[in-house]
């Protein structure tokens, strides 16, 4: 996925001179995950540069540069390292267009390597999407595949408003090839990754492969599970999600973040509201526990895996049919 993102940045920078990339170690090093590899060499220090080590400064600089006509794409080195920039993101990046009656729109992309599964030490594995999704004015995107990583990053850079771009870091080293000539997926549109007749798994980002794995295992046992990949958390694609659940009558939301007051909770509420008369069982959530992200030796117990998903699917009141 790092390669797909790198290609997206290259293609965007080639297509539009106003696209600039900056952050910590994104220059000659190419970023700690190599997503910006070679951009400084290709486009020069003016287009891709290292900043001092200060996340609020990076976000604030991006806001000012966007005010003056550029399209900054900034990297927050890790999910939890983005928190110093929280005020700049929530009070300024998210609100500028509204404050100024739409006169100052900020086409800024904040790339956040996020979530766990890489054996990272503390503060390197947070799933921070709820903070951003809760903030009006932000568009929040989380690709689950290399093809979507490419397409959604291109779409995010072209988006007229700020986008929080959540990159599931455990998939950075996936080498799945991307056809960059394909049409760019629109922001705000979910996709049915796997149609299913018996129940629908709803996931985004790093939880999509987990859900697909669970569906594979269920199929072997004769149960047909569908998987919807949100791709965009904000805007939320109710139409795709609700249509699938209405068809199957059963839904499980799968996400890595702690479940309390989470995006998973939001999805469950929307499905309950929108599919009430179609539901055969309560909507269930399989999420991270409500504890800080665990140390590497314990993360496999924390992360929602296919087994936990299938155990929850088993509880969807199948005898009621």
């Amino acid at each position, binding site marked *: 996925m790092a390669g797909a993102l790198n290609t997206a940045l290259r293609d965007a920078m080639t297509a539009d001179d106003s696209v600039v990339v900056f952050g910590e170690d994104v220059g000659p090093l190419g970023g700690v995950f190599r997503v910006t590899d070679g951009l400084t060499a290709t486009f020069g220090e003016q287009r891709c540069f290292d*900043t*001092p080590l200060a996340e609020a400064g990076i976000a*604030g600089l991006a806001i*000012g*540069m966007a005010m003056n006509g550029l399209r900054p794409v900034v990297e927050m080195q890790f999910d939890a390292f983005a928190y110093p920039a929280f005020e700049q993101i929530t009070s300024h990046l998210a609100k500028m267009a*509204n404050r*100024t009656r739409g006169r100052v729109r900020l086409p800024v992309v904040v790339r956040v390597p996020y979530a766990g599964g890489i054996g990272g030490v503390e503060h390197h594995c947070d799933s921070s999407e709820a903070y951003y999704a809760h903030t009006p004015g932000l568009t929040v995107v989380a690709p689950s595949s290399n093809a979507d990583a490419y397409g959604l990053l291109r779409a995010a850079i072209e988006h007229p408003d700020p986008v929080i771009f959540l990159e599931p870091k455990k998939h950075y080293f996936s080498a799945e090839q991307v056809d960059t000539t394909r049409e760019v997926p629109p922001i705000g549109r979910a996709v049915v990754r796997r149609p299913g007749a018996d129940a629908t798994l709803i996931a985004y980002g790093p939880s999509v492969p987990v859900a697909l794995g669970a569906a594979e295992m269920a199929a072997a046992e004769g149960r047909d599970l569908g998987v919807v990949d949100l791709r965009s958390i904000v805007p939320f694609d109710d139409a795709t999600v609700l249509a699938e659940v209405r068809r199957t009558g059963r839904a499980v939301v799968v996400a890595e973040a702690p479940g309390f007051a989470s995006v998973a909770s939001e999805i469950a509420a929307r499905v309950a509201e929108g599919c009430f008369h179609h539901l055969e069982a309560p909507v269930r959530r399989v999420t991270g526990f409500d504890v800080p992200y665990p140390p590497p030796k314990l993360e496999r117990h924390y992360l929602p895996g296919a087994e936990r998903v299938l155990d929850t699917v088993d509880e969807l009141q199948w005898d009621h049919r």
Partner: protein
Amino acid sequence: MTRDGPIRLLAADGAVVEDQRHSLPPAESLLAHYRTMVLGRRLNELAGALVRQGRLAVYPSSRGQEACQVVAAGALRPGDWLFPTYRDSVAAAARGVDAVEVLTLLAGDWHCGYDPLRHRVAPQATPLATQLPHAVGVAHAARLKGEDTVVMALCGDGATSEGDFHEALNFAAVLRAPVVFLVQNNKYAISVPLARQSVAPSLADKGVGYGMPGVLVDGNDAAALSVVLQEAVERAAAGAGPTLVEADTYRLEAHTNADDAARYRADAEVSEWQPRDPLIRLRAHLRAEGVLDDRADAEIAEAAEAEAERVRTALAADSPVDPAELFAHVHARPTPDVAAQAALLQAELAAQEEIR
């Protein structure tokens, strides 16, 4: 650099102070500043009155700081940018933004009432120091685009404690961004005095830590401010990087009308600053120089009064707010949720209309 005390070209009585390195700005430019400062003072008074009448929710007055407000705006060229805080309404007006639009925020009609891109004046920032990194961004983008734009970024003494102040100055220095940081040291952050904010010998001294010049200037001396800020703007425009300017001034009024300054400072202290008023000083100087007589002074006061009257009338007029605007600007294309919520509110309003 700041050991000799603030740079001062006019004494409190308007007399010229000998200075080896700086010469007095031309009289016409000082007279122009005086005219705008009189208007600024009048707007400060008017806004206070409008709060008492309930027309404005609140007003953080810059009375006593009009020299900083006016000269900061006056130092800029048409293509330059100003980044004001909530206390810098007069600076925004001096930059050419209609005072009625400046006061939109405090009148409660909307947040930013003017077009920042048209005026090159950023929205007034209420969270402290958060606008400073934006100022650096505008400046750095200008450099990348090959424009010689300079950005004047305003903040107060309290804001120098914020992380964003540090990050902005460090970024500006490292990027050699064309920014002038003007700290109006008015001695109080709401109630907290400077001594609880910083024990640096001066706030201008902080420039050393960032590798940029730090200049301490008498903030109630429009002539000294004019020279210092002009020099900093020219330096930035020439590609020599940012400057930190500390203006030694005083907030003559409470933080806002909602504040009670008697709880934290003595009247005697305020009385000490009254004779150092920037307007008194500049008026005395211009009169002594013979460029301002009774007639001109009266004409300037009348013009300020006429503008105040225009602003008062405009703000007294009923300004209908549009509920649909709650949703209109959040996204370039409203999300389905926001669109649905806009429709819900419209339906509620239509139903209420029917009941009437």
